[in-house]
Each structure stands twice: as structure tokens, then as C-alpha cells.
């Protein structure tokens, strides 16, 4: 147990180990544990902070986005310098977290969680913590957690409202059974449409973190077995009992169907894909091939774009006003439009054009 200068702080976790249900035994379990936190926005940053301060041995962070000024009101790990430097959230968070607790192995991935990478990201984790902002990624996480037997701690916030529940393979139903997998047009309220109170974020993240610590320290009987919904403005809080799995569900049912996810993953093509990021006037275009950011930076500069660059991404403000944020893994966030066809056209014109010239 040493800080960056090698000093041992024997009392680092003393206030946590004096809490009887955790104790020294629980602390050792935390040190041996690994958690995956998907999405390092408001909930994710708060969750990461809780896990790192508590001394969880390995904390994996995954996020596809970068820090913007509108994040600073509630995303507790970021500051103005991160927004000015356009740092990816996973990177900015990891920088802060390593300063908070150098004993923790913080692994940051700047990536979009998809069928192709989710199994590997979750593999070996004792818990998956939900810091995402959309239902489809949550469904994907629920699927992989039930396949791998890892509890998934859901949390969601919007406005002054929030929800949280722990989904445990073998005990509760999976998210797919609970909320259905149908795409709904105007899905739900999001922080981008109805705003969000920072205090709501902390309330829900705190509920998730408490359950995570119970699970990781072996206090399984103490787990809250309810779906909790709360409105902090009117202060109403409701708990509903969690149902068991549904017999014929291939994820949470008794008869686990053989999963075909590996096949699905292999079938995932390298074609252009896109996701409209809900309520954000942003479309994520997936080019399916790694991008050479050095070349792209020069090329886009020559096309009259205003360029911001760091080790992790290139941001190009186009003469037409939209912004392209390019990641080396082949993703482009097109900001300033929610028209996916138009976003794809911009990517073809500004990014794929270069590939053809080479």
C-alpha cells in the first residue's frame, strides 16, 4: 500500500474497515476485485470515484465521448482544462483517478461499447456498473452480464428523477425482460432534453455505489432487492420488488439457450454504421477501419477546417459549421446535425475522400 512516492498509508481505508460489515476481510476482497464502468459521464464519473477511493483493485472505464463545457455542472471528475483540451472522458477521468488513489489499476478505453468488444471488456469483472445514457447499450450490457454471470447495477437519471436496480443472473430477470427490447421513437427523457440536477446524479450514483460495495465485500444478503425510483424535487421515493427471470428467456430464464453472440460479433461487418446520439444534435458514424489521425489532421487543415488536436482525437470545425470529432478506432462524432444521412455524407466527403487519395 503505497502512494506515488512509495509511502505506505496504513490508515488509508481505516474509516471503511471500521465499518463492521466490511472490515479488513471486506477490504481485501475489494483489493482483489475488478469492476467495469461503462460510460464515464455524470453517473460513471461519480461511480468511478467511489470505486477508486474505496480501493477496488482494478477499475475499467469505457467511454466514447469527450469533455465539453456543458458536462462540468455535474460530471465530478472533469474541470475546465479537460474541456479546453477536448480530452476523451475516459482519459480525463483516469488522470484524476490515478491522483486520487495510485494503488488502483485504472484502465481507460476510449471506445464505443458494441457487440464486438463487450464480451472482452466485461470478461473477468465481478460487477458491471451502468454509467450509460441510452437503453440500447444497457440492453447489450444486460445481455453480456447474464451470459457471463456478472451482476449489472443499472442507474438512470433525468431532470430530478432517477432509477436504480441491481440485476443478478440466477436471481432476477434481465433488463430485456423488464423493459422490452422494442425501439421506441422518442425513447425517454434524457439529460439533453429535460436537463438534470447534479444532486439527482449523486443520489443515484450513491445507491449504485452502495450496492457495488456490498456485492464486492461479500455482503450479498444485504443487497437491496428492489427497483427504486425517486423524484428529488417532489421527494417521492418508491421501491418495487424485482421479479425472477422468465423461463424461456435466453438470458435470464432457467433454460439458457446457447448464445450466438460470438457469431453475431463475427458477422458484424466493416461497413459504415451510424447511431444518432439522443437529443444531442450529434451522430456517431462508425467507419469500421482505424483512422490515421496525423494524416487526417493535415488533410482537414488543408480543406479549410479549424483543427483542435490532442493525443486521443482530432476535432475539425468544417467551413459549413458542423464539427467532426475523429477517433483512431474509426469513429467520427458529427456534431451540429441529427440527420444521419447528412452525417454519413460529411464523413464520406471529408474522411473517406482522403483514403481514396492515398
Amino acid at each position, binding site marked *: 500500500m503505497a502512494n506515488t512516492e512509495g509511502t505506505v498509508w496504513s490508515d488509508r481505508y481505516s474509516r471503511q474497515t471500521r465499518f463492521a460489515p466490511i472490515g479488513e476481510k471486506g477490504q481485501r476482497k475489494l483489493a482483489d476485485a475488478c469492476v467495469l464502468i461503462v460510460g464515464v459521464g455524470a453517473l*460513471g464519473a461519480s461511480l468511478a470515484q467511489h470505486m477508486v477511493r474505496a480501493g477496488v483493485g482494478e477499475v475499467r472505464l469505457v467511454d466514447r465521448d469527450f469533455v465539453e463545457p456543458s458536462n462540468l455542472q455535474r460530471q465530478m471528475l472533469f474541470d475546465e482544462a479537460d474541456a479546453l483540451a477536448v480530452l476523451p472522458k475516459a482519459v480525463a477521468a483516469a488522470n484524476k483517478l490515478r491522483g486520487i488513489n495510485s494503488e488502483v489499476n485504472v484502465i481507460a478505453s476510449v471506445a464505443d461499447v458494441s457487440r464486438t468488444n463487450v464480451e472482452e471488456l466485461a470478461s473477468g469483472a465481478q460487477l458491471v456498473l451502468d454509467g450509460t445514457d441510452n437503453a440500447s447499450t*444497457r440492453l447489450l450490457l444486460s445481455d453480456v452480464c447474464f451470459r457471463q454471470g456478472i451482476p449489472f447495477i443499472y442507474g438512470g437519471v433525468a431532470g430530478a428523477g432517477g*432509477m436504480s436496480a441491481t440485476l443478478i443472473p440466477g436471481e432476477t430477470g434481465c433488463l430485456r425482460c*423488464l423493459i422490452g427490447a422494442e425501439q*421506441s421513437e422518442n*425513447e*425517454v427523457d434524457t439529460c439533453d432534453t429535460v436537463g438534470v440536477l447534479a444532486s439527482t446524479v449523486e443520489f443515484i450514483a450513491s445507491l449504485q455505489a452502495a450496492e457495488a460495495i456490498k456485492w464486492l465485500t461479500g455482503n450479498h444478503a444485504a443487497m437491496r432487492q428492489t427497483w427504486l425510483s425517486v423524484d428529488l424535487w417532489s421527494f417521492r421515493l418508491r421501491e*418495487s*420488488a424485482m421479479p425472477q427471470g422468465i423461463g424461456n428467456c435466453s438470458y435470464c430464464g432457467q433454460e439458457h439457450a446457447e448464445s450466438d453472440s460470438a457469431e453475431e460479433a463475427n458477422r458484424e461487418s466493416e461497413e459504415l454504421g451510424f447511431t444518432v446520439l439522443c437529443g444531442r444534435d450529434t451522430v456517431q458514424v462508425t467507419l469500421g477501419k482505424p483512422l490515421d489521425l496525423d494524416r487526417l489532421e493535415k488533410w482537414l487543415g488543408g480543406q479549410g477546417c479549424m483543427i483542435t488536436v490532442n493525443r486521443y482525437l482530432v476535432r475539425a470545425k468544417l467551413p459549413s459549421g458542423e464539427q467532426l470529432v475523429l477517433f483512431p478506432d474509426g469513429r467520427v462524432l458529427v456534431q451540429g446535425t441529427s440527420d444521419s444521412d447528412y452525417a454519413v455524407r460529411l464523413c464520406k466527403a471529408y474522411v473517406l475522400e482522403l483514403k481514396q487519395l492515398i
Partner: protein
Amino acid sequence: MGREAWNDFRLYVITAESNHPGKSVVDVIEQTLIGGAQIVQLRNKTGSRDEVLEQAKALRELTRKYKVPFIINDYPDIVLETDADGVHLGQEDMPIAEARRLLGPYRMIGISTHNLQQALAAERDGADYIGVGPVFPTDTKPGRAAVTTSYVTEAARHVTIPFVAIGGITLGNVDLVLAAGANRICSVSAIVGSHDPAAMCRSFLRRLEAGAEESKTVVMNGREEHTRARTVEQLVIQAGQQNKKLVIELNGIIVQRALWAETELKSGDSIELVHFVGGG
């Protein structure tokens, strides 16, 4: 026919001569009465006054024989002349007060409505019943946008006089209309355009009866509600929430989405519909 019997009808039939070339209006309407039609409206927007009067006389005689009320679209004067039971008006026709003045206190006045505001105005102005529609797109009234089942649900909640759901209703979609809260339905082309209007009426009546399960009282999101929804899923449709991502709790326990359709509601159930919260 006494006025008190008016509220009993559930299957409302309207004439549409162009839907049955080669068969007379009287013959087709008699078939619907044999099949169990419970109220008949003469609607003739193209014929001369004399033609309408002639049809009205024939249908008055026929409906007396089968003891069902007879309504005429427009023409309060023909209502009086043939001793019909009432008039049906559109939003662009004469005001309800004017029709009431012409017809006196005992004849029925119905009016077509396309939104809740019109429905509440009709109720305030003394209409005896309203039409609610067109629920689905229909050739009978081309060019008018469908109001969808969400207006049916609004009407079920807020309108206290009888309302009749109308517009594009067929055996294929009538269950949705009933689930949305309608008690009374009217089908024009599906009935009078059928090769066997009597059988079609019997089929509709069977569906109406199946849908008329005991009304139950449940507490939904803390408020007492009367509903004829049989299942959680039907209640979701009635509440107009079928396109939302919801978490539903029934008597303290979450009901998985996959089980909504088979989870039956009982009187006294307590149900919470909460929108799934997705931000992060």
C-alpha cells in the same frame, strides 16, 4: 321509442349507398337489423331532399318494426316530417342550440367530434351523444386525418355523455378501439359494404360483448380508475403509453415487459406506470 332506451345501443349503423351497388338501402339496413344493429342513421350527402325524404320514410317504418332508434344526418325538417328520433350534425352544420330549438326537448341530437375540445363543447351545448373519430383513416370521409385511439381514450376519460367511436373500424381493429375505452362503435363500410351485413353485425356484437367484461376499479399511479382492460397491456394502451419505455409495478412487484399481455388485472389491483429513466 322512449328516450331512456337510447343509451343502450352499442352497435351503430350508418347508411352508405355507394358501398352496395345493386342493393337498395332498405334491403341492406334490414339485413343489419336482422343481425342486431341497435341504432340506424340515414346519411345521404348527394341525393336531393326528395330522395332523402323518401328513404327516411322507408327507414322510419323499418326501424319501428325492429324497435331501434332512427337518426337522420342533417335535415331537422325531415326528422320532424317522418317522426325520426333525432338528427346527427357535423361540426360545420347548424349549432346544437338551433337544432334543439327546431326539434324540441325530446329528440336526440348527435354531433361528430374530432378532438376533446369539440367533445366537451358538444356536451356543454346539450348534445345527447357524440361521434368520436375518424379513429382510423376511412374512405367514407376521405382527406380527414385519423384521430387515432388516443382520442378514444381521452373521450373515455373526460366525456360523460355517450360517445360512439367511428371511422375505419373493422373486425381487424375493433379490439384496439374497445381496449382504448370505447363502449359503442359505429362501422360504415365494413357493415353495409359486406356481402352479408347481418353476419357482420353479429360478429361485431360478439366482439363488443367479449370486450364488455366487468368494469373494474384499479388504483393507477395513486388514482382510482375504472377500466375494462383485461390485461396490463390493454391498460397501457388505454393510457396511451404503448409507445413509451415503461417500468410497470403491479401490487408491489415489477411486471416484466414480456408478461404484460398475459398478466390479468383484477379489481382492487394497484398499478404504477413509470417511464424508464435513461440519462446518465
